[in-house]
């Protein structure tokens, strides 16, 4: 009898968790602090502020049937200087705001009031390694992100994602997507983004997709005259 009740409870929980159209996920950023050189007086204030900003960052992923938006959870009490520092900190830890238009299958990096069209065809290597994150069984997947810096150096950055097939959105933090379930943890270099709270909604929640001008990355770099 007890086993039947427990089984019924688990099934009802499973059913409820599948009976949703939108989700909102809060990711906490776990970032490696910048080592401050005490002899470097000029930049130490900036780096101290960057470490302070990095220690309290959260990001929100909102997803519905139209796609998703991933952006930093803004701290209202921050002054203009800390907002600028926060922006610099995000760049140093390679974290951006993103939006994904599901109908057009387009991923955008949102920067400087522009929607920069970004690549989202990730060649994930799925493994059978698992771990529990907040009672969800998560599977490990890896991806090698290749790019060339402006100095011509070739970089191969290992991206490690832990996703759960129990949540049927193939999205995740920082623009990473395409896995058979929601990414609850993402790690690369000095950055880790971990899901701390997940809210499920039965209806399509309203998401403000940024309506900035869309440009290619090449156009964006031409504007800054960096290439």
């Amino acid at each position, binding site marked *: 009898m007890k086993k039947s009740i427990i089984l019924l409870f688990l099934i009802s929980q499973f059913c409820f968790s599948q009976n949703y159209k939108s989700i909102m996920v809060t990711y906490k950023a776990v970032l490696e602090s910048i080592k401050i050189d005490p002899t470097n007086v000029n930049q130490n204030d900036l780096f101290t502020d960057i470490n302070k900003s990095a220690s309290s960052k959260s990001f929100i992923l909102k997803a519905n049937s139209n796609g998703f938006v991933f952006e930093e959870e803004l701290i209202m009490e921050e002054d203009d200087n800390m907002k600028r520092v926060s922006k610099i900190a995000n760049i140093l830890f390679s974290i951006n705001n993103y939006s994904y238009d599901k109908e057009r299958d387009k991923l955008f990096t949102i920067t400087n009031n522009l929607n920069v069209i970004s690549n989202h065809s990730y060649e994930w290597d799925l493994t059978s390694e698992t771990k529990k994150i907040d009672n969800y069984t998560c599977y490990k997947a890896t991806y090698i992100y290749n790019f060339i*810096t402006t100095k011509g150096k070739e*970089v191969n950055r290992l991206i490690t994602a832990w996703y759960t097939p129990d949540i049927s959105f193939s999205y995740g933090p920082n623009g990473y997507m395409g896995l058979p379930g929601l990414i609850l943890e993402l790690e690369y270099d000095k950055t880790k983004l971990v899901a701390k709270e997940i809210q499920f909604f039965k209806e399509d929640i309203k998401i403000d997709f940024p309506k900035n001008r869309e440009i290619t990355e090449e156009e964006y770099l031409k504007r800054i005259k960096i290439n």
Partner: protein
Amino acid sequence: MKKLMFSAVALVAFSFAGMANEVKEIETTKSKEEVVVVEDECVQASFDAAAVVIGMFALELTPLQEGTLILALYDACDAGR
């Protein structure tokens, strides 16, 4: 009376029309305008600061990230003026 008024108006109208066809030679002098280019010190400063930050922390940024860093540093420099 009406014919007189019409004639007066017609006379004025045609005299203006006649004046429109006159060609006058107008002397023009070209004035030299000096264009002064003001260099924005924050532009170079932001590129220099980005190079320092990238070098100091051995950062490996994509061109997009580096561009965004330069713009963010420019904003910081601009705010400090």
